[in-house]
Structures are given as structure tokens and as C-alpha cells.
């Protein structure tokens, strides 16, 4: 079951920090991150990859994005 990080409404770098916090809690699995700017989408995707997580999917959702990352 995937965990969700709702980072909508937060300015960069908050979405990255929230994602990294969530990544620290789990070794593997799936995490969904909701963001509402292109900048956050790019930064969160890069940050996840730098921690060894795969970018499974990036979908447009409303005015923002649903980013799914996975590991293991």
C-alpha cells in the first residue's frame, strides 16, 4: 500500500523536504507525492532519484501533479 505526501500549497523546497522525510521512514515500497508547481515536480523527482528511488509515474492531476516513486 502506498503512502501519500500532500505537498500542495507548500513552496519549494518544502515538498522536497517532505518527500525526503517520508523516504527516511521506509526502506522500500511506494510513495505518492502531490505537488502543484512544475518546479516542485522537477525537484521532488530529482531528490527521489538521488536517494535511489525510481520514478514510477508522473501524472497531471488538476492543476498539479501526482508523482509516484518506488523502491524494492
Amino acid at each position, binding site marked *: 500500500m502506498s503512502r501519500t505526501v500532500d505537498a*500542495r*500549497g*507548500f*513552496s*519549494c*523546497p*518544502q515538498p522536497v523536504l517532505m518527500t525526503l522525510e517520508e523516504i527516511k521512514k521506509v526502506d522500500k515500497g511506494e510513495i505518492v507525492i502531490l505537488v*502543484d508547481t512544475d518546479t516542485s515536480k522537477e525537484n521532488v523527482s530529482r531528490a527521489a532519484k538521488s536517494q535511489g528511488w525510481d520514478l514510477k509515474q508522473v501524472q497531471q492531476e488538476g492543476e498539479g501533479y501526482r508523482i509516484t516513486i518506488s523502491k524494492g
Partner: protein
Amino acid sequence: MWAVVGTIPDQDFPLVTGLVSLKDNAISIQGQQIPVSRGTPALLAAAIKAGELQGQPAPYGFLVGDIGVGVGSRRLCDYLAKHLGKSDFRTITFHYLQPNVRWHNRVLSSVEQMTKRPILVADAGSMYAAKMSGKAEAYDLFTPDIGELAFLADEQAPHPLYTRGFILHEETRVPELITRSYTHNNAARHLLVKGETDYVTNQNGIQATIDYPIVEAMEAIGGTGDTLTGIVVALIAAGMEISEAATVAARANRLAGYYAKPTAATQVAEIVSYIPGALEEILAENKKGEAKRVA
């Protein structure tokens, strides 16, 4: 009626709304007691003390526990978005809340549905959110410290983390930062800037500067900025014009600190107890129309 929105530094503190009272260095709301310490409790305590002097009824509090992660703030903003539109508060002060643009905009939309537009005051995280949302002009008063003013002035910065001067305060740049905040529409109608010198300003420029008395120990005491905001909010709620309220509050806050004869270990609750006397003195002076210099 006047309202204060903020957080309590206890993640188990529930979302509570109701009239707030002060007794024995604790604020009380719906049976919950909260010690007067820095943050929203100190603002409320100062506001209540200043309000009592003005014959004001108790303020209405919207409070929730939040230790800085934002869980409580989100719940409180959801609640406000649903309920504020039907209320009739004359003044609403937004204090410690996690700065989030979405939550802020939903709350502001709710405020805009009120039959009569209230006076809006913001400080701390609520003020950051207002600027981040591009809606600073919707507010009547901000009470930033110098670092927060630097954030308001930095039209490029999406967040305080990007701002030069947010944690390394540049006292000499205050007038320039004030101008820049207004130029880029990132200031409320009025600003009360808290620092070694306090500045009262609006779009027309600096209206007053207050730099006495200076009490060295006050720098060490957490919450003295919150008490300043509390006093000005109470005066505005009592009907005082905003620039005058800010000037009186700045002088009264300093005088209360002076009369408390604090050491660096003094807690903000003790300063609060001197607010009524200090405020009474400043208001009396104002009435006489004299400036009095404290030796």
C-alpha cells in the same frame, strides 16, 4: 467581536474554539488551560490584558496543537475555511500557522464571504503564507521582525529559505526594505516592524519610530514580539486607528519590559503582568499630548 487564530506547541492539543480568558499565568479556552509562553499564548495573554484596560470583551480563539510539522495547522485551516464566512468578527488576527498557500487562500476566500469585511492582522507563519500567496494587500497590518521584513521585501523569494537577511538581520536596511515591500505589493496596508527600533509605516512612508526605553535583557526573553502584536491587536479591536495603535503598542510593550526590571531569565508571562500599567501610562500621555522620555 475579535478573533485570534494560532497554534499551541503541543501536538496533542485539540482544535478548540471559544472565548479566551487569562488567569494565574495561563490562558483558558473551553476548559483547556495553556501556560503563557512564547507564541500564540503570549499574544493572547497580552491582548487580553490590553483589551481589559479598554473595556473590551474577551477575544475569541481558534487554536490547535502544532509542533511545526503542520498537521494541526491544516485541520484548523480546513475548519476556518468552512466556518469563518458565516461569522461577524470585526478583527481577525492570524498568528503561528504552517505557511501553506492553498490553505491560506481557502481561509481568505472564506473571510471574503463575510457580510462585513473585518480588519485582518497577520504575523509569523500566517504572514509568510499571505506574502507567498501574493495576497499581502488583503491585510490591514503585518507585524514582522527585520528578517521577516526582508522576506516581504524580496519579491523573488518564494519562501524565507531563499531570502538574504531572513536570519542575518540587517537593521540599517529597514527603510529600504519597507519601500521595496510596498513597491512589489508584498506589504499589508500598515506594517509594524519589530527591532532595536520599531517602525510604524504605511504606503505613505514611515509614520513613527520607537526606540526607547531599551532594556538589554529583553533581547533574551522569548515572546516579547508576540506581546507587542497582542497589544496592537487589542487596541485595533477597541477602535483605535491602526498607525496610532501600532505606535502606542510599541511604546507600551517597551515600557512594560522596563517596569518588569527583567533579567535574561525572566519569562514573558511576567512582562505581561506589567502591560496594563504601561499601557495606561502611554494612553494618558497621549491624551495630554506630551512626549515623555523614560530616564
